[in-house]
């Protein structure tokens, strides 16, 4: 127990034992001091073993000694239920409450009047305390360790109170008064003192009494004070604990949270067990906000007592599994501070975190993204390592040079280790989880928070395939508009990135141009980036820009520019002469600093090709007369010495001049003079022998020993004497050896071994607590560790949730206000929501929502178990692509369908609205918006009448579409006429999410789960039926399309004998009914699969759905894309088949691809979501081919999508079935246009 230094100083104070320690404290109020007196007596009574201890502890000791205290106790507190820590808490609480609550009107009403002595005695002397295993350790720890500082601390209080500085007396009086306004005034003054850094610790006893003050502002300010000084006044701080403990039990979640927050902020080691218990309890609190606070408390406790790590990790593990966005950021932060090495804790939560990410608050996002970057580096393979993809990707990159080298390297590698790489050469397929992370972080580049953008940028830089990294450039450039501090950090990172990936920032070159108003540090960083970006094509513009910089008034910046020019010259051979000439011109600049810097840079450049530049050397030799900057002079001298053969006449003369001024030169110049002399002596001894000796003699008596040493050494080396050994012969070789030209490198080179965006990267040094970014593993670790029991569910939860989140407020309002018509179908739902949350505190609608979700979750968990049993069977089939949806009959899928259906229902009204409005209104400019809103509300009114009808008869509407010759609705959803485009988009988005989990290459069964409604709950009298196309072969008959049907019973009675009756198929259609469902309990859902042979037509299959009481006429109409199954074929086969299907069988359509639909990935996704087709490999990069066979007749459907320049593309479909072809074209174009 480390006592703070303050204690040490004041330890000498009185420690009179039996004295009522606080009795003579003038500041503490009457009740307070008398309390302490009683404590003192209490201590005296139990003195047998008494130490100089803090009174409550004496009381405690006395109590433990078996002495009952004839004092009224509080009601038994629910918290003290057995464990040792519980017992300690109870004690503290008991004492605290007893002393404190007495003054507090907020105390439990009336306990003071009804003393229940017996109860207390029983509680205190409870034998449980003695027998509990945990208790003695706790207690002894208390006595051995904690008592000492407490005893030491007490005098500190004494000295503080006996001789208080007079100026605080008034504050104390104010604090003791009964008026809240006076207390508040006093607290404000105290807080102002704290803010100014003045010591207000001697007011502690007076302040702490007010911890339970009724006035909320006083209370808050007391908290502020408490958190600030509790560490110094540990014993007194304990007095406040009971208040917080009471707060922890408050029914209001916000009070619970704030109690935990303050309790955990009090840095008093003695309450560690209390904190631990409170955290554990809060971690399983109903309210997500309290759980968030618990997550915040974890690092606080950890920093207080790192021994608690193991227990805290348990709590972290528990909280990591939390499904709310509120908690996610905070718990990951706790994870990072407490146990960043326990990466294994993340596995199970990885997908959930990825999916929640976009809804987490911005600060949490930063922490999560940084953590996930590290995680991904340990769990996935590098996307840039493998042959095939590497080549493909590098081709896409702008930097063709790199691509060239890349492929060459690859070739070489192949040649070398063919056998070894055989295993490796299987094409790299990105782990779907890896893709998930990349996809889910990308939208965050649009965040307004620079830290989030930077976090995503570094994630992409470290994790994304080369071809995809480019997206971050735009966002980073945007940040350059921000405050200069942000610019500073971003530019540092851009500088590092631009070395590795130059192509990425090249289009933004002009954004790095420097303004005269930029601060110098920003200018220099921009210059760095410009230099990194320079290449043969843009160098001329960059140099022109540099020319204006050179004339700047900011001389540091000019010097940096000259160095930048030097770097450009070394890196780009083409412009070396231009640069050199430019620099030479600078030699006549009037500013000496500019000249000096130029000289240094020219020196470096000349080393590359000295022979051609004797003129420049001569010019520079002349400069020695004028230029005074030592570094420049030294550089010139070195140059002349080094290349004295090129300037044989001038060199000795320079030496002569230098010899004259030798004594006045700077050391660095002197050394170079000696060097020059030595070199001249070796090459031209006739002219320079005397001069050399003169210089060496001067140097011999120089004040600087370096120079003296150098002179002695050189003399021995070059001047042959009888003593000098063999070295003499080699002197010339030594001095005039070929020296390699220096390489001018960026100081940002190789900085990327630090995680970008980190403090360590910025400082280029490892900061405390920096977690190394691990290298990619060679072998991919087992991806199945991330499988959660029900992976589908987690995904679907979050998606559903997001939707709900976004839409909810809108709907909840419309429910409330738009009357019965619109809310007809959502009412029961909202009702159930309220039910589920009414038990909780439920202070806000949002709270209830969250809770509802939890409840759903818990519902699922029970289903998890069922799922687990089924798991082994499914595992074989699905392999690593577990996340794919759609295995028939799994309960989780039912859930998902339900969610989908809910969503569809919710979406519908809005869709209608949009629809109605756009059709009924002309676009009105916003200036005349009042008219717009008029008509808008009209439209609203109109569509409000519409819903009941359309909802009641989805079946009828679908029946209207029976005509084969009318083109199908945009997305062939039975109820498409009431679901507007926005829904379609949403569904599209939904499938999109799912697709990308599957590998992009050749996904045979694209598991798009678009759910369609078969029977609405209203129409079905509580029975809701939905169906989807599972895209799996129907087991019984290969010519049938498998339709998965999900029936949920929303009535409150059982539905029996659910079956298909009287199928009335059109000619040729066959329906394979699902087995009869005997009984469906209320609230239950069942999933069955039926097969329908649609005869390759999009006509609806009609049948009756019967229950024991009723019959419903329903129909299923397939989208054309579902009437086929993917086939695999090679490129050649494809071409051959295509050749057969020309002329009438070929349908061609031109289309424009929207911007976001131009990547390979999305195109493939969109096509496969529109139709159940398989991808055919294709040599050309701008072509996509897909093939499928119709289910019934098995005729081929071949799809070719060819991208032209810009955004245009051509879609070709070859198929015997022309109707299918035309319809498919429409569907695919629609899918691509979204």
């Amino acid at each position, binding site marked *: 127990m480390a006592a703070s230094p303050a204690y040490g100083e004041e330890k000498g104070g009185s420690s009179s034992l039996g004295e009522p320690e606080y009795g003579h404290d003038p500041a503490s109020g009457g009740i307070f001091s008398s309390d302490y007196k009683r404590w003192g007596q209490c201590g005296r009574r139990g003195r047998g073993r008494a130490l100089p201890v803090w009174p409550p502890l004496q009381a405690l000791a006395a109590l433990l000694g078996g002495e009952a205290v004839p004092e009224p106790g509080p009601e038994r507190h629910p918290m003290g239920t057995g464990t040792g820590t519980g017992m300690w808490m109870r004690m503290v609480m008991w004492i605290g409450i007893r002393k404190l609550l007495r003054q507090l009107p907020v105390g439990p009403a009336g306990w003071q009047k009804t003393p229940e002595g017996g109860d207390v005695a029983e509680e205190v002397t409870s034998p449980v305390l003695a027998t509990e295993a945990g208790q003695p350790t706790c207690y002894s720890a208390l006595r051995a360790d904690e008592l000492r500082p407490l005893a030491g601390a007490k005098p500190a209080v004494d000295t503080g109170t006996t001789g208080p500085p007079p100026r605080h007396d008034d504050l104390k009086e104010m604090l003791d008064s009964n008026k809240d306004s006076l207390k*508040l005034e006093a607290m404000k003054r105290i807080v*102002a003192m704290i*803010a100014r*850094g003045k010591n207000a610790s001697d007011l502690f006893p007076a302040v702490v009494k007010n911890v339970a003050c009724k006035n*909320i*502002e006083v209370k*808050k*300010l007391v908290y502020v004070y408490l958190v*600030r000084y509790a560490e110094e006044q540990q014993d007194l701080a304990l007095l406040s604990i009971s208040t917080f403990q009471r707060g922890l039990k408050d029914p209001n979640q916000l009070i619970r949270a704030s109690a935990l927050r303050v309790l955990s902020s009090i*840095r008093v080691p003695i309450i560690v067990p209390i904190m631990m218990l409170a955290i554990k309890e809060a971690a399983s609190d109903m309210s*997500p*906000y309290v759980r968030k606070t618990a997550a*915040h408390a974890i*690092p606080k406790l950890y920093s207080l007592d790192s021994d608690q790590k193991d227990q805290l990790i348990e709590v972290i593990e528990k909280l990591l599994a939390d499904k709310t966005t509120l908690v996610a950021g905070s718990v990951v932060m706790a994870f990072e501070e407490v146990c960043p090495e326990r990466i294994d804790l993340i596995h199970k939560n990885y997908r959930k975190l990825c999916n929640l990410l*976009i809804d987490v*608050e*911005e*600060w949490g996002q930063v922490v999560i993204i940084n953590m996930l970057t590290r995680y991904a580096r340990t769990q996935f393979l590098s996307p840039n390592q493998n042959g095939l993809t590497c080549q493909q990707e590098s081709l896409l990159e702008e930097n063709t040079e790199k691509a060239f080298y890349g492929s060459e390297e690859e070739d070489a590698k192949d040649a070398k280790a063919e056998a070894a790489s055989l295993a490796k050469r299987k094409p790299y397929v990105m782990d779907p989880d890896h893709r998930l992370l990349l996809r889910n972080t990308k939208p965050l580049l*649009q*965040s*307004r928070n*620079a*830290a989030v953008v*930077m976090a995503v940028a570094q994630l992409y830089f470290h994790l994304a395939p080369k071809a995809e990294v480019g997206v971050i450039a735009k*966002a980073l450039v945007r940040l350059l508009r921000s*405050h*200069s*501090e*942000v610019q500073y950090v971003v530019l540092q990172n851009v500088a590092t990135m631009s070395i590795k990936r130059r192509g990425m920032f090249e289009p*933004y070159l002009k954004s790095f*141009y420097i*303004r*005269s108003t930029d*601060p*110098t540090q920003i200018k220099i960083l921009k210059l760095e980036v410009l230099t990194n970006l320079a290449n043969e094509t843009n160098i001329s513009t960059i140099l022109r820009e540099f020319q204006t910089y050179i*004339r700047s*008034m900011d001389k540091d910046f000019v010097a940096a520019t000259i160095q930048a020019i030097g770097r450009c010259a070394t890196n780009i051979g083409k412009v070396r002469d231009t640069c050199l000439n430019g620099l030479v011109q600078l030699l006549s600049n009037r*500013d000496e600093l500019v000249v000096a810097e130029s000289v240094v840079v020219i020196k470096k450049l000349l080393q590359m090709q000295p022979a051609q530049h004797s003129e420049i050397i001569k010019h520079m030799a002349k400069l020695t007369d004028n230029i005074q900057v030592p570094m420049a002079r030294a550089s010139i001298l070195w140059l002349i010495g080094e290349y004295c053969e090129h300037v044989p006449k001038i060199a000795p003369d320079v030496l002569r001049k230098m010899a004259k001024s030798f004594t006045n030169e700077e050391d660095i110049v002197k050394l170079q003079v000696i060097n020059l002399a030595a070199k001249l002596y070796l090459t031209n001894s006739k002219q320079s022998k005397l001069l050399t000796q003169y210089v060496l003699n001067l140097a011999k008596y120089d004040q600087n020993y370096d120079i003296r040493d150098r002179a002695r050494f050189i003399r021995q080396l070059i001047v042959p004497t009888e003593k000098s050994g063999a070295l003499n012969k080699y002197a010339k070789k030594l001095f005039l050896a070929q020296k390699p030209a220096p390489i001018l490198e960026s100081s940002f080179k190789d900085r990327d071994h630090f995680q970008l965006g*980190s*403090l360590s990267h910025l*400082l280029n040094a490892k*900061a*405390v607590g*920096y977690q190394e970014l691990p290298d990619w593993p060679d072998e991919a670790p087992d991806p199945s560790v991330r499988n959660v029991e029900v992976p589908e569910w987690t995904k679907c939860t979050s998606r559903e949730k997001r939707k709900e989140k976004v839409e909810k*407020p*809108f709907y909840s*309002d419309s429910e409330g206000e738009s009357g019965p018509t619109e809310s007809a179908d959502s009412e029961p739902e909202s009702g159930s929501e309220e039910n589920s949350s009414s038990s909780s505190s439920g*202070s806000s609608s*949002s709270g209830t929502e*969250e809770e509802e979700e939890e409840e759903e979750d818990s519902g699922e968990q029970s289903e998890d178990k069922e799922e687990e049993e089924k798991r082994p069977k499914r595992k074989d089939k699905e392999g690593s692509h577990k996340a794919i949806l759609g295995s028939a009959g799994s309960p989780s899928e039912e859930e998902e369908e339900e969610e989908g259906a809910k969503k569809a229902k919710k979406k519908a009204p809005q869709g209608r609205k949009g629809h109605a409005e756009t059709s009924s209104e002309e*676009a*009105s400019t916003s200036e005349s918006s*009042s008219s*717009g*809103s008029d008509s*808008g509300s009209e439209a609203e009114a109109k569509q409000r009448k519409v819903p009941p009808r359309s909802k009641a008869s989805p079946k009828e509407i679908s029946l209207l579409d029976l005509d084969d010759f009318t083109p199908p609705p945009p997305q062939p959803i039975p109820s498409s006429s009431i679901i507007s485009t926005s829904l379609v*988009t*949403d569904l599209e*988005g939904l499938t999109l999410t799912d697709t990308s989990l599957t590998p992009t290459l050749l996904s045979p069964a694209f598991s798009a789960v678009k759910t369609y409604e078969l029977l609405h709950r209203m129409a079905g009298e509580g029975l809701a039926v939905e169906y989807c196309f599972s895209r799996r072969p129907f087991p019984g008959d290969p010519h049938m399309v498998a339709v998965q049907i999900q029936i949920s019973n929303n009535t409150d009675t059982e539905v029996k004998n659910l079956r298909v009756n009287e199928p009335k198929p059109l000619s040729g259609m066959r329906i394979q009914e699902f087995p009869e469902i005997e009984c469906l309990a209320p609230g239950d859902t069942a999933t069955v699969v039926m097969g329908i042979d649609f005869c390759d037509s999009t006509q609806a299959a009609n049948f009756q759905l019967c229950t024991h009481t009723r019959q419903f006429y329903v129909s299923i109409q397939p989208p054309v894309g579902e009437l086929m199954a993917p086939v695999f074929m090679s490129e050649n086969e494809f071409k051959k088949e295509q050749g057969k299907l020309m002329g009438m069988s070929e349908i061609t359509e031109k289309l424009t691809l929207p911007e976001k639909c131009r990547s390979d990935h999305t195109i493939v996704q969109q096509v496969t979501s529109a139709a159940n087709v398989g991808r055919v490999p294709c040599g050309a990069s701008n072509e996509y081919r897909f093939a499928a066979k119709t289910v019934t007749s098995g005729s081929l459907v071949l799809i070719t999508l060819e991208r032209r320049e810009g955004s245009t593309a051509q879609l070709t479909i070859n198929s015997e079935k022309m109707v299918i072809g035309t319809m498919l074209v429409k569907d695919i174009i629609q899918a691509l246009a*979204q």
Partner: protein
Amino acid sequence: MIHSLFLINASGDIFLEKHWKSVVSRSVCDYFFEAQERASEAENVPPVIPTPHHYLLSVYRHKIFFVAVIQSEVPPLFVIEFLHRVVDTFQDYFGVCSEVIIKDNVVVVYEVLEEMLDNGFPLATESNILKELIKPPTILRTVVNTITGSTNVGDQLPTGQLSVVPWRRTGVKYTNNEAYFDVIEEIDAIIDKSGSTITAEIQGVIDACVKLTGMPDLTLSFMNPRLLDDVSFHPCVRFKRWESERILSFIPPDGNFRLLSYHVSAQNLVAIPVYVKHNISFRDSSSLGRFEITVGPKQTMGKSVEGVMVTSQMPKSVLNMTLTPSQGTHVFDPVTKLLSWDVGKINPQKLPSLKGNVSLQAGTSKPDENPTINLQFKIQQLAISGLKVNRLDMYGEKYKPFKGIKYMTKAGKFQVRT
């Protein structure tokens, strides 16, 4: 994460300190003062300063250094962004953020800081949550408080933090329901000596002031959304909707907020609305120089250019300037060598000009750089990129709000090299 915060004024006094973990001695700021001394100007103080046991991250705004002390690795932008958020919050609370204001409201400042961070990790940074927790001081409230003894601290705990729309509080009520949107575009440009554009881009923002009752759900659509190249949103904007339909759909925060900031793609040619003719020459022999500039409208789409202000940092050797403007007022500060000319509105018939002589320090050679000219201007009723808002719709509430859109083009970092 963030350990402590020190507020330091221009003269190097620490006038406020706040610790979220254990107390860090204020002597740690000595390292900062050292760095401050080394950097000639305030804005050149490095934002990150390593010291033996801590790292100091600072931002400089409103002549105050906000210095955060951290002890271990944390993304620097995280801290910097947070500090800026703190400043924004102060500004939001007190109107201006200055040393005097902070000192006057030290208790509120302290309470706000207490709520913003928990153990150094941001807890509540949304200003509407904070304002519910701690009400911003107004004169009226101060008076009322002193009379009635009521407090500044909200006695209801905020529900916003628990909400799925944390940026909006519940139960907002207005008698006049209004929503105003300001489309403000700034032109960043560098114009070279000859008047040709070296680089020009348009950065735009849409600032909104929404005072609507209840929980309105707004959609804002553009006539030409493709113009927007790079956008960043307020968290309230539904990203998916934007991705798929290019429509801004959101439940707005209450009051003022920045809905969107965007960048118009660099491929589009930017119309430069003004030009500057300049003739600045320093002669080597004499200690006199000529100075003459004229500002004129260029591509203004028929709108008038207002609020024109020309500033230029003269070289050190300039002693004084004797100039006569054809309109507006001009000031030359011989200490900072800053020339500023408040032109006002440009009249295309009679172009404003500023002519005169420059007296240079005798004996020194002529400055080798001509000063750059910084320009500020405003054009009302025009978004220079051509962006147009198509319509604004409200769902979820029944009343009819008043809607207003304003366009404005301003000069951002608009520099003319001479």
